[in-house]
């Protein structure tokens, strides 16, 4: 009996070692460990043996069974590994082939910039408001201290709408800046206000690489008790740092806009040359980015804000100018000619 078991062991193991696929493994299991296998037969027949023999044969048969089961598990593992290895070998990809294209669109660079700007100001408690692009002379000029025949009107070359009122005047125009919204917002609210206005503006301007007849501006203003030029400086310097990076320096210089007093222009140090002077900054080391100032008391009076109680600041800036500077775009007309070869770069 024992020798029969040994014979079985030798045969089973030698067969098992040469098996390399799961199907043969199953066949092997059935023939050596299945219900009808010799070993099972032996184990079933143990009861019929004399006690002495039964003990020895039983121990040997059970040991063989355990041994065969362990060997099967090991061989199964080897076969599985080999299977995976084969699959890997067979399924090798040319990883240098291009991936499957996905289509994700893009926002227009002007939209992207406006969002960035508005995001910075909303984080400072400003509220985004929009207004009409076709405006009355009153909001675009008169209410901003730019009456008829004021020489400062030359600062805003204007496209007028073909519309005459009963008096024969032509008071309707395409807004030349977003500043009319200062008046519209203040007319409808009491201080405190803190608002930014992104939007399209228009100029009667022959277009070339640096001039467009349509572009975007972002206007901002805040009115409350105790707002000073120091707050304007702090707000705008912080804006410049967040938009252009914390290493940027900013400065104010005196400038003139009829609806603010004092009026300033803000510049940042040139990010190409860091202030040393280069073609981008016309060798001045500084790049103008916006105009600003304290809201003129006459403007406040016009919307029934008492300038002895309230003060405020206002600022306005071109939107395209920021990506133009940031990406070195040399022609502003690219923005609204909508060439995908341009738009896809942002």
């Amino acid at each position, binding site marked *: 009996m024992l020798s029969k078991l040994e014979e079985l062991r030798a045969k089973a193991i030698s067969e098992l070692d040469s098996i390399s696929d799961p199907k043969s493994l199953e066949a092997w299991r059935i023939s050596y460990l299945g219900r009808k296998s010799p070993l099972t037969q032996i184990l079933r027949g143990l009861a019929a043996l004399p006690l002495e023999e039964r003990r020895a044969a039983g121990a040997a048969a059970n040991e063989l069974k355990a041994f065969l089961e362990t060997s099967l598990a090991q061989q199964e593992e080897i076969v599985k590994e080999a299977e995976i290895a084969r699959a890997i070998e067979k399924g090798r990809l040319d990883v240098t082939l291009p991936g*499957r*294209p996905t*289509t*994700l*669109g*893009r*926002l*227009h660079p*002007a939209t992207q910039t406006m*969002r960035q700007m508005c995001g910075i100001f909303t984080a400072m*408690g400003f*509220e*985004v*408001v929009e207004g009409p*692009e*076709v*405006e009355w002379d009153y909001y675009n000029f008169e209410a901003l201290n730019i009456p008829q*025949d*004021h*020489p400062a009107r030359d600062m805003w070359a204007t*496209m*007028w*709408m073909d*519309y005459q*009122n009963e008096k024969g005047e032509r008071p309707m125009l395409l807004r030349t800046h977003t500043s009319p919204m200062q008046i519209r917002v203040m007319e409808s609210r009491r201080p*405190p206000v*803190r608002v930014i206005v992104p939007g*399209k503006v228009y100029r*009667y*301007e022959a*277009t070339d690489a640096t001039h467009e*007849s349509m572009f975007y501006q972002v206007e901002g203003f*805040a009115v*409350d*008790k*105790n*707002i*000073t*030029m*120091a*707050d304007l*400086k*702090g*707000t705008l310097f912080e804006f410049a740092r967040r938009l252009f990076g914390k290493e940027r320096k900013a*400065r*104010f*210089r*005196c*400038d*003139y806009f009829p609806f603010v*007093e*004092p*009026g*300033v222009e803000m510049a940042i140090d040139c990010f190409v040359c860091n202030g040393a002077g280069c073609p981008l900054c016309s060798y001045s080391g500084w790049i103008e980015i916006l105009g600003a100032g*304290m809201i003129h008391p006459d403007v406040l009076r016009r919307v029934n804000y008492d300038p002895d109680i309230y*003060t405020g600041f206002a600022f306005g800036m071109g939107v395209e100018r920021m990506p133009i500077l940031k990406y070195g775009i040399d022609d502003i007309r690219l923005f*609204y000619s*909508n060439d*995908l070869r341009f*738009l896809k770069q942002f």
Partner: protein
Amino acid sequence: MKVSLNWLKDYVNIALPAKELAHKLTMSGNEVGRIDVVGGTWEHVFIGQVAALDKHPNADRLKLATIDLGTERMTVVTGAPNLEVGQKVPFAKIGARLIDGHTGQVAELKPAKIRGVKSEGMACSEKELGISDNHEGIMILPSDAPMGVPLSQYLGDTIYDIKVTPNRADCLSVIGIAREVAALTGQRTHITEPGYSEEGNPIDEAISIEIADPDLCSRYCASLVTGVKIGPSPQWMQQRLIAGGMRPISNVVDITNYVMLEYGQPLHAFDYTQIKGRKIIVRRARNDESLYTLDGMKRDLNPNMLVIADEKDPIALAGVMGGADSEVIDPTTSILLESANFNNISIRRTSIKLNLRSEASSRFERGISPELAPKALRRATQLLLELAGGKAAKGIADVYPGKREQKPVLLPKERVSRVLGLELSTDRIQKVLASLEFSCKPAGTSRDLLVTVPYWRTDVRMADDLAEEIARIIGYDEIPTTLLSCQIPEQVPAPMLTLKENVRDLLVGCGMQEVITYSLVSQAALDKIDSQGKLRPALRVANPMSTEQEYLRTSLRPGLLAAFASNEKHEKDGIKLFEVGRIYLHRTNDLPEEREMLAGILGGPRLERSWLCGEDTLDFYDAKGILETLFHRLKVKTDFKPAEDQSLLAGKTAEVIVGGERAGIVGEVHPKTAALFDISAQPIILFEIELAKLLPFAGAVYRYRPIPRFPGNSRDIALILDASVAASRVQEVIESSPLVDEVTLFDVYSGEQVPPGKKSLALSIRFQSAERTLTDEEVNKAQQQIMDLLQRDFGATLRS
């Protein structure tokens, strides 16, 4: 305003390097654009004197000039016709860099032998030195020019090009800039009062002045000089005029221009003998009047224009341009000089109307002080006597109906810090203001100040103007930087703004590219999408830049179609563009309605060309799929119904219904329309949505649906039904069953396998209950009920 530093130095000391001073001016509001250095290239050019002129031994037309440089003498060969012994001339030694008189190129002067004689340098023309275009002869310097001195020391200059802001009439003058320089560098200006002897008869006997329209002329001053001799003005004056951007004409005209640049007061010189009746009348022009102006043009006048007239006719357009009849010409001997103050609005209107913007009008329209008129007049009279000879009449005529007492400005003690956020002592405020020649005194017993504004500062009227003066002189760097410390105001919700931003993000997520097209379009472009004339008439710009941008768009379509067409030429992949923008719709006697629209256009290959993808073409269902995604994400329930549109193909167009109303349209662009825009791709799909129509639904509050706790049960069915039955109606019927959770249409088929006129729809129906696991029996029953309804409504049968 171009300002010569040499000229500035007449009134204020300049110790700073030109670049630093320019920076100070820029920071304080007078932006210096260009800085030109005159004579920066005049190395090796000196002042020499012609000591001798001899014949050239080998050439009749050439001469040998001996030039004395003080320490040495040089001989040069010259062909210049105007050289005479004793003249001072600019002399260039070998190595000087000069402009070639013929080619205009800069070249280095090299030793040369001309017709056998060595030439040791060159006497220069103005053109060769870059001073002017004059190349007719050698430049002759004044006889007192110092011999042997480098020319750059004698004639060199630095010219600032200053952008003067519209509020600063005073800075359109050398003296005005000198005052700024003085304040910025802690100095005082030295401006001498002009003086001269008056040897003629009293002026009142020679001229009478009447201001008929004092609202348009607040002051009129005049002086008279007889016995003058017209000729060229001296070189120093010509140089300064050229530096200031003006062309020298004659001594009298140059003097008026010179004093205008110096004082900022425009002046005019009349030939006194041409003034009929010895009378100057400042009045509005009459309707039938006209005037030949100095430029030879006949100008038709009207009562909105102010003229200077004699007894009979207009002789000048006040403050804009003189008349030809009273022009100062060579035989003129008696000059009436005018220095007046005209209403800035009237001057501006007239000069714009006649398209005659001049140095004079640009000063008047900014509003100069009437106090300036007699001062500038005296200065011009003095120069006239000095440079053109003659006798001045006694006194000046001065009619001043617009005289107003100048009130001091009250500067409350808190105001400067309230505006600037910077605490300054009263002492410092006074000192800064004093540097600009404002004088301060205490207002009563308070610490407020009463500030007297110098007459030339017509722009300073109130306390905040003074705050600006202080800030710009001390510099904005001194102002602290603080963040807003007041409370954040309450914010008003802006649902349209939010919707627009969401729409943009969602469409970008759907693979579309945002574009922004011009709001102004041509009538022709609008006509292309409006063959049936259904659009509302567009608003026209009265002064368009071009016909291409003449009308405010009433549709986003032309812009998008044009953008598609221009990109199609170079894009190999499909094009998917959208724009969120406004259209402008006319309203009577009001601003137009600015309607927020979304429009999109797509066409070409569906996917980027790739080894992994097929080459399908974008079609109607791509556009619809994008819209469905958009509306689904916006939580807006929509229906699509067949519709018609003049630029879209019938049968391939659907209107988008939101809340029972038409909110937009989607469809395949009609090939005729596409052709009008030169689009060759087929098909092109276009959609257009009126965003306001979504607004009531897009912001709606919604509640979440719990995740089902019990398993659902899916069944696939294939129906055969009439080809004309809309799939959405089948879907609606199925969805009406209470146990149906979701219906997915996964196949549409018509062809050999189904009878003619029929189609097959394959649908996957998901049954689901929130309360329990559905049994097969329940699902079978529900499915049978659905089949019964489909049979009843559409004659649908199950496909076997």
